[in-house]
């Protein structure tokens, strides 16, 4: 059902955890639909220096979360905002069709984290 890459990221997820005092936190999904993704970022000079995730969900939800953290690390905020859910799925060698809708939200969570960072920054300014 899942590609080898999905299974690899599911079995050995990268960047799992929380960042205390994160500069931005993004959360998407809800427990009703069965997927929640939470992404934490640390930003310096407009670049994502550290990124971690916590996810409740199926194999695809966990693998996409892991993949998006790898893709976004050391990227500028603008580059991070350009990452799309379908690029994440593609990087994993594809997802089963039904998973494209329900569990492919990791880029959305990343965008939410970036937007949250920018909002926090404005408040400080």
């Amino acid at each position, binding site marked *: 059902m899942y590609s080898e890459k999905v299974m690899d990221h599911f079995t050995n997820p990268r960047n*799992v955890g929380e960042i205390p005092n994160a500069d931005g936190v993004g959360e998407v999904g809800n427990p009703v639909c*069965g997927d*929640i993704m*939470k992404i934490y970022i640390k930003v310096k000079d407009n670049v994502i220096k550290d990124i971690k995730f916590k996810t409740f*969900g*199926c194999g*695809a939800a*966990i693998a996409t979360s892991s993949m998006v953290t790898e893709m976004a690390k050391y990227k500028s905020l603008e580059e991070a905002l350009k990452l799309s859910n379908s690029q994440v799925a593609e990087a994993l060698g594809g997802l089963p069709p039904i998973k494209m809708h329900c569990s492919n939200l990791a880029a959305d969570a990343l965008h939410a984290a970036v937007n949250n960072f920018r909002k926090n920054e404005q408040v400080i300014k």
Partner: protein
Amino acid sequence: MFILEKTTEQVKEVRVVRSVYFDHSGTTPVHPAVAEEMYRYLIGDSFGNPSSVNHLGLQVRKKVTEARDIAAQAIGAAPGEIVFTSGGTESDNMAIHGAAYTNKSRGNHIITSAVEHHAVLNTVKALGKQGFNITILPVDQYGMVSVDDVAAAITDRTILITIMHANNEVGTIMPIAEIGKLARERKIVFHVDAVQSFGKIPVNVDELGANLLSLSGHKIYGPKGIGVLYIRKGTRWRQTLFHGGAQERLRRAGTENIPGIMGLAKAIELAMENREAESARLMVLRDKLIKGLTSIENVRLTGHPVKRLPNHASFLFKCIEGESMLISLDMKRIAASTGSACTSGSLEPSHVLLAMGIPHADAHGSLRLTLGKDNTDDDVDYLLEVIKPIVEKLRNMSPLED
């Protein structure tokens, strides 16, 4: 010393390749004796059509009669009340649709429960769109249908009650005999889906008060694609779905699935022989699983604690999604099942768990372990050993608070 280490290594390796099947409510492996029996009807000159009047047909017809006797005896029926079908889904469809349309002049009300198998629930719902009034009864926290609810739902227009004997997802055994009594008193046709209970607990059509009863082959180490619909003599029922030849005394058209029927009869024979001893054995393993898993924090049993199938253990794991647990177990070569939305092909978690009042979020974390003939105490120990780190890993990854 060196040898000892080697041995430990080897033992570890053996444990890694151990394969455990805990999904017997999903399907069962075909018993070798069943496969052998079927093979006899796939080769040589046992290919005859039982409807044909020639020596090849007649010799097969005799065998079908014997198989029918075996099926009838197993559930306390007469051979003439047994119809072979393609399985549980067909039996359910035929029973419900046939009873509804045959009794249309007497009324249009059908009663079922919220936790039925989709083969029943969706058939009843389809009839709801064809002019029938339907009542879908709620269940309690254990997934149990209440006899009082059934009694209260019956009206002068009620023509059919269809309730399952035991639930496939949570293992709860329903008060079928009492519902059957109610139905008989009110002269309402009563259908029982006994696909999950047959072979595990006694299924006797008179004791249950069933007019119609569905069985499936592949849940009892028989082949897929074969089942039984029991139709009590005198029941207001006729075939309304399939039109064709006069096979099965006009109740099921189409040339009989002979290898399937013969395999099913063998499976029924074995099930009857082994049921009591096997159920007692599996109950011990089931209770060990329940005890072991519910000792993990925030894991609870679903379904009735006592009135449940002897081979059935089902759970909710808080803050864990069922599919990720299933994949993790599968990588340890343990085959299990979940009611999570992710495995249902829809976006909704199990209708059974939701009907029991379990919140959506929790229903995603369900795990079903159903035991069978090849399971041992070691299998249970293996599961209990490997599941703890899986639960820990997935919970550490989860943003939900316990």
